[in-house]
């Protein structure tokens, strides 16, 4: 049999999981999640300050820039617990931004941005474009030389928490090759950002019109290994997205089990009926498989990540979709209401499935990797 990725856990991951579990449970109870649904910013500034104070923004940044020098393997449990509690905010995207800045930026740029990110400045990611292709290498946004630096043209979509961000990192094509541009939020006119109405109400999402925006030369990041770096970013984004979904799967399953234990029909809790209890077992098995694949992907992320990450991404999506879908059904008419928390998870699952390549897309990639 072909050798597939192993699984393991280091002490720091255990510590991160414990810390994140306590923190997220305390800071993101469901009432808080619901209170934030109508909040313009979509996350609590004070909770963000605490995330920064705990050092969570610098986990994957090297110590010379003020981070703790760990990696995405240690970020995964944090994001998993944020997913469990539906905690929304700029955390994942800021981590991913730091990840690729560290890999492609100049020394000066790293010195300029990474310590700020560790210290709590947030960075949104502008990677998606109107064409909707999941591959990060397909970029139509242009950076053309101008008098003072570059002028941009094009549009980015699904830029999460862009309005409240300190920076926005976008992909561009410059001189025929992919590059990155880091924008200061203050330099972006209000009219350039349009809030999108998206299925996950916990996320703030924006379209960003870049036409005519000018930047200085030092905002451009170029690198000979940019295509590889974008692939790595794509995998990192999928790893963290899988972590969010695995967390969400567990939470929505627990929610449904609680309901099945307490809702009485025909004189018995509905969880006693096999039509309810058997699909819940299937949902739980899906969760446990997804979690195994997630921690295998996190464990092997620095070495041979691609197969492991894509597998985790596939299973996390299908497990979350099934668990959240059944959560609505098993809550009966209550499940159909906006007040039922099952809907929050189902919407989150649909949103996550839409990002960075869905299960079918990942399986297509996996087939090429496994059968070539």
């Amino acid at each position, binding site marked *: *049999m*072909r050798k*597939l990725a*192993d*699984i*393991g*856990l280091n002490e720091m*991951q*255990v510590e991160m*999981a414990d810390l994140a579990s306590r923190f997220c449970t305390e800071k993101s109870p469901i009432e808080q999640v619901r209170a934030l649904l109508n909040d313009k910013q979509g996350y609590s500034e004070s909770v963000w300050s605490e995330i920064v104070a705990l050092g969570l923004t610098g986990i994957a940044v090297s110590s010379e820039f003020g981070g703790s020098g760990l990696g995405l393997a240690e970020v995964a449990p944090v994001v998993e617990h944020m997913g469990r509690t539906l905690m929304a905010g700029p955390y994942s995207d800021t981590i991913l931004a730091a990840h690729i800045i560290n890999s492609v930026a100049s020394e000066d740029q790293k010195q300029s941005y990474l310590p700020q990110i560790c210290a709590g400045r947030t960075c949104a990611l502008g990677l998606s474009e109107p064409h909707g292709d999941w591959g990060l290498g397909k970029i139509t946004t242009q950076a053309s030389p101008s008098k003072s630096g570059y002028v941009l043209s094009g549009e980015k979509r699904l830029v999460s928490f862009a309005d409240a961000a300190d920076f926005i990192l976008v992909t561009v094509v410059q001189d025929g090759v992919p590059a990155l541009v880091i924008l200061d939020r203050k330099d972006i006119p209000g009219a350039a950002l349009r809030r999108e109405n998206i299925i996950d109400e916990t996320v703030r999402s924006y379209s960003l019109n870049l036409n005519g925006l000018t930047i200085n030369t030092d905002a451009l990041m170029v690198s000979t290994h940019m295509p590889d770096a974008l692939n790595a970013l794509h995998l990192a984004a999928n790893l963290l997205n899988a972590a969010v979904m695995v967390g969400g799967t567990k939470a929505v399953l627990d929610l449904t*089990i609680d309901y*099945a*234990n307490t809702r009485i029909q025909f004189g*018995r*809790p509905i*969880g*006693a009926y*096999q039509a309810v*209890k*058997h699909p*819940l*077992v*299937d949902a*739980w*098995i899906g969760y*446990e*498989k*997804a*979690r*195994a*694949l997630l*921690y*295998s992907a996190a464990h092997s992320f620095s070495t041979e990540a691609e197969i492991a990450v894509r*597998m985790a991404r*596939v*299973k996390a999506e299908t497990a979350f979709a099934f668990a959240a879908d059944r959560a609505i059904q098993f809550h009966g008419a209550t499940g159909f209401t906006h007040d039922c928390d099952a809907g929050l998870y189902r919407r989150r699952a649909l949103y996550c499935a839409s990002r960075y390549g869905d299960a*079918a897309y990942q*399986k*297509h990639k*996996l*087939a090429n990797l*496994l*059968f070539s």
Partner: protein
Amino acid sequence: MTKPTKQELKEYTADADAWFSEHTPRDVGFMLPLTFMEVGTDQQFDFLRAWQRKQYEAGYLGAHWPKEYGGGGLHPKFQAVASTVMQKHNVPITLNAIGTNWAGPLLLDIGSEAHKKKYIKGILSAEDIWCQGFSEPDNGSDLGGLKLRAERDGNNYILNGSKIWTTLGAHAKYMILLARSDPDPKSKYAGMSFILTPMDAPGISTKKIKKITGEHGFTQTFFENANIPADGLVGAEGQGWRVAMQLLEYERGARAGQAGGIIMQTPDAFAIVDLARSAIRDGKPAIDDPVLRDKLVDFIIEIHAQNLNQIRAKIPGLNSEHPAGLMLMNKLVFSEQAREISQFAMTLLGENSAWYVDETNAPDGGLWARSYLNAFSATIGGGTSEIQHNILAEHVLGLPKDNIRVDA
């Protein structure tokens, strides 16, 4: 018993790895069963019996069982390491699994001194094959309704009734028997006794049952005034249900103490990848078909995930909120996967799937057709997949019991 040092375990692992590298049988020339419930031919039986004996003699089965009864007398960590190495080498299954993994640990825990002296060594070496007498013609999943009568007669029991689906019944020397010793119990689950029964006792006969595969794999076992010694009683008379429940905990991996080894081989998803490469659809290899590729990737992901769950179950901090659940789900997950994969393999064979075993045209000797039909032995035997769902829902997820199973 002192805990082994890391160095000792490392050396033991290296030795085991070397031994299984050298001795694990490959390409034996006929199909090996994935579970002991699938053993269908004398060829398979003889081969697996010899293989178990060889592993035992090398010290890799029951390494942690007491030396005075035939075990290796080592710390349990050594056997755990050996079993992991066996898994890695994907070794053939342990034939005498009812003995090594269910009855053996039960006897070591609650059996008498005489039981241990008499039975343990033969269990490990596969000299004494064991079978299980639980199911009856009218009582399968609802085990509590069993009727086989055990009437005390001095130092003996007189048995009357019948057991069915007795795996290895035609080969077994001993049976773990659950019988009704009190014909008028206070409740359905009272009045049963758990008795070690010699299969050669007068009045016991077996009749082979032809499986859906066309082979003979299990038996119906008849008891007509069968007279057996009462010293085979395990636990107190009338407490058989409790003993049987403990046995089922070993069977389901919810309780430790098994002799080790592999009792269920993991289905190999990559085997059907090869099939998809050789199958032709409209002039092209089937593996180029995007729909089939998608399905193949699904199988590989599902099996890999469950393999990872095995490893994860042993890593504190990574074994989830339900560590026992990761093992408890194994039977359901692997048996259903094996069924689905062999079914899918049949579709890949296309026209060739019409041929059955012994047909010279049949690819791989009809292996896939037989595998698919055989796969039901594991999705039904040892608690059906439906019962497994109930067990997981009730014991792992904490959902309410099924009222149907409550005593009437």
